[in-house]
């Protein structure tokens, strides 16, 4: 379908345009090949024409002696060394593990509504929660931590720590088992958990449990919202650029226990309906021998912070309601702000990942709008050219819808996000890893595929990471989806009648 060229409105020409577009893409993206192939063919023809004796004669006439050969070899080796040394160290994702919640923590709709009615005396709030749950896109198998199952919920520091230990240790145990890594070999530890930050930190808790070395570099990020997982990856990457031959573990989680809102303010009841228990532990490394068994290589991380704009800053805000109970207030313009933040992120990441054909079109449309006709529609680059898989933070159904519209993605591209929201709910920063595991479990991840992970968070931040797959992931994949992947994808109705 014609997108940028409004000068050809007839539908009959749209089909021909598609082939023109394809041809153009092939031409521009493989420009170098198109240039060199004729040269190589002509050289080959010339060589064949010359015949073997003449080639031998040409070779002998070069009078190459030992010194000159050695010099040329030395030059080649030297240039190659300088080139390789000046490149940044590659960061490999060796493997990752997600927390699989136990069956006992499941919260089907009926349980959630029943608890809601008992705990919250206000009838309007209960009805509001029911309406949200009906349209949320969540399924019947999402999980809440044990302390929230009590009537009334018991959010103490001890139960919060218990939840943290349950989710984080399960994820790390599985990661260590999968990769065979010894805790003594961990050099860097980055933990991000937005809403629970005890002293000593969760990173100290991990160091204590797994008896990590005393010179481990640990960092505990907090309050950074649902996009904090990618911030931790960015930090780990910066550290791995500086320290050679190191392993870094990144733990992304969200602890629900202390943040269950028990008041009546509607905008603050929303997180109760959407946030669920989850955690992910990721092993990153810059060791060369890990390259052989690593799943992905980190290509790029781009961070965008819209906090300078007051509206964006206030759209996810922790505050106290009129009764003094604190909760997270989600504003109504969340979608619009998410869209704007995404646009900013795209403008930065676009030039770095889009193929030449898209960039040229974007550049031409920009030039055209400035010089020829300002009324031309801005060209939205086709990101499907740059990536095979998309992991969009499962923040809520509306977020996924909005992004699908903005990026012009097909339902298959956002399937991982929707199914993760259905099966696990909004697990905040770890949701991206559940989605990646879904794609792998479906057997869709092939060597050479590129994945784009997009996270949104309070502040307002939009962060994205680009990974390149290094080896085809074979099914069946061990992970949180292993027992239910065959049931997916499911059709999620607009409204589930409760």
């Amino acid at each position, binding site marked *: 379908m014609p997108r940028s060229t409004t000068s050809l409105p007839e539908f009959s020409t749209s089909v021909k345009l598609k082939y023109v577009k394809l041809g153009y893409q092939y031409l521009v993206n493989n420009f170098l090949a198109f240039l060199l192939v004729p040269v190589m063919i002509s050289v080959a023809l010339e060589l064949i024409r010359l015949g073997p004796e003449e080639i031998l004669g040409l070779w002998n006439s070069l009078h190459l002696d030992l010194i000159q050969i050695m010099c040329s070899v030395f030059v080649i080796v030297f240039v190659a060394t300088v080139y390789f040394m000046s490149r940044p160290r590659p960061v490999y994702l060796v493997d990752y593990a997600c927390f699989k919640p136990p069956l006992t923590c499941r919260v089907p709709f009926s349980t959630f509504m029943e608890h809601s009615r008992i705990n919250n005396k206000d009838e309007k709030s209960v009805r509001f929660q029911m309406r949200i749950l009906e349209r949320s896109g969540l399924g019947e198998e999402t999980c809440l931590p044990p302390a929230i199952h009590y009537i009334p919920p018991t959010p103490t520091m001890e139960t919060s720590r218990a939840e943290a230990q349950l989710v984080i240790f399960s994820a790390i145990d599985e990661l260590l088992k999968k990769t065979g890594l010894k805790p003594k070999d961990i050099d860097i530890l980055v933990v991000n958990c937005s809403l629970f930050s005890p002293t000593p930190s969760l990173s*100290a808790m991990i*160091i204590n449990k797994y008896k990590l070395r005393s010179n481990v570099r640990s960092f505990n990020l907090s309050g950074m919202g649902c996009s904090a997982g990618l911030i931790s990856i960015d930090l780990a990457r910066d550290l791995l650029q500086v320290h050679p031959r190191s392993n870094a573990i990144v733990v992304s989680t969200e602890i629900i226990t202390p943040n269950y809102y028990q008041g009546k303010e509607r905008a603050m009841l929303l997180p109760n309906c959407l946030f669920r228990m989850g955690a992910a532990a990721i092993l990153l490394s810059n060791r060369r021998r890990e390259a052989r068994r690593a799943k992905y290589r980190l290509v790029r991380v781009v961070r965008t*912070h819209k*906090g300078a704009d007051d509206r964006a800053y206030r759209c996810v805000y922790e505050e106290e309601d009129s009764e003094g109970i604190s909760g997270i207030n989600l504003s109504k313009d969340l979608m619009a702000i998410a869209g704007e933040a995404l646009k900013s992120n795209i403008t930065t990441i676009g030039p770095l990942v889009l193929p030449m054909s898209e960039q040229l079109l974007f550049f031409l449309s920009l030039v055209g709008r400035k010089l020829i006709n300002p009324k031309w529609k801005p060209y939205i680059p086709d990101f499907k050219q740059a990536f095979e898989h998309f992991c969009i933070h499962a923040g809520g159904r509306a977020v996924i819808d909005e992004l699908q519209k903005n990026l012009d993605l097909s339902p298959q591209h956002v399937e991982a996000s929707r199914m993760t929201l259905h099966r696990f709910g909004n697990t905040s920063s770890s949701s991206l890893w559940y989605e990646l595991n879904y794609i792998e479990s479906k057997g869709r991840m092939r060597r050479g595929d590129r994945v784009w992970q997009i996270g949104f968070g309070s502040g307002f931040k939009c962060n994205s990471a680009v990974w390149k797959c290094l080896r085809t992931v074979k099914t069946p994949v061990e992970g949180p989806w292993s027992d239910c992947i065959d049931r997916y994808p499911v059709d999620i109705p607009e409204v589930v009648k409760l």
Partner: protein
Amino acid sequence: MLLMELLVIISTILLLYSLLSFVWKAFDRWRNQNCYLLEYICYKPSDDHKLPTDLCSEIVIRNTRLSLSDYKFLLKVVVNSGISEDTYGPRCIVQGAREECPTLDDCFEEVNDCMFTTLDELFHCTGVSPAAVDVLVVNISMFAPSPSLTSRVVNRYKMREDVKTFNLSGMGCSASPVAIDLVNNIFKSRKRTLAVVVTSESIAPNWYSGTDRSMMLGNCLFRSGGCSFMLTNDPSLKHRAKMNLKCLVRTHIGADDDAYNCAMQKEDDDGRVGFHLSKNLPKAAVRAFSKNLQRLAPKVLPVGEQALYALRTLRHRLWTSKVVKVDAKSTAAARVNFKSGVDHFCLHTGGAAVIEAVGKALGLTKYDVEPARMTLHRWGNTSASSLWYVLGYMEAKKRLRKKDRVLMISFGGGFKCNSCLWEVLRDLQDGGVWEDCVQDYPPQTLVNPFMDKFGWINEENINTEGRNIPSHINI
């Protein structure tokens, strides 16, 4: 042959080019390895935040669950703490009497005041615009709202969209070197980067209102304070920088259960959250400290001193046959003269006992520990930012001269011991927050003026007749 000569010329050009680019890259990397401290601004709350001893005891009394022995214990701690009458607390506790139920607004007010006043002055002093900041790190251990405090700063100062923000939390009193480590690592892979770090602590939401003694110490010792500082690796700003980071060593002994549990935020038996300081804390501190020193010594000491240390250790191993029971700290440190490699010591003001113990372990004189003791006296234990107040004292006293080396040592929950060594780049003379009072230091006596009024609490059998004890205190 012409072809041959062409080949030789091309390879020579390529060789020269590679050699030059290699040398340039190495030089560039060496130039950008540095981490310069441009400026640091400590927080001075306004006078209506002052928390003198009598007000502190009044606040303590307001807790109706205390018995007389608890009250005695607390007053004893306050009076013997080495803290003066001029330390500061959060407004909601000092004026609002809301220590048991602080609102979110109270917490924000405390944090906003600290962060924004110091940052305003930092940007003003350095002349740097907030839009030029590339990295922002905020570390406040016990308060982490959503959106984070870094977002709060980004919003207030309208920083750029691509600013890298990090909100560190839960890292305890030792968080300053952690933040510096983070920034230093980012500097190593980026050129001409400017970083701002804000370090402070939040007292308002963490006042303990129960009866567990191990948790009440925090109330008596922690005081309001904070610091904002600016770091850069841009060589063109070197002439304006105050100090240059030489090395940084982080040690974490959380693997040991006793060490991990010795400073922990948890609930007491009645379900009230407080910061528990166990009796194992000094032992854990000693272990962490000696481990840190072992890694720090080779980086800090001059070669001669290291050789001497090696010789002494060897002699000790070979000649001492009997097993002597000494703690690791005193043997390791006493045999090493740190003063040969370090001119000034910034010790974390965890308490009078901590300063004394560390001073003794390092073989420091009264002159060396004076900045830390005076900081404890004037500002109390301001947690992570205390190192900067100690540095401010040294600067105000005009002790810091070009080429001097300053060692910062701090301890924190987890259990961590972090240290970093700075080299002073030019003679420093800024008064900073000490400007109005440094001439009164060191004072004649550090004894609390309320010793008389409350001195009776030190007696074993007290006669309560004629003593002003509130009615609800259960005897």
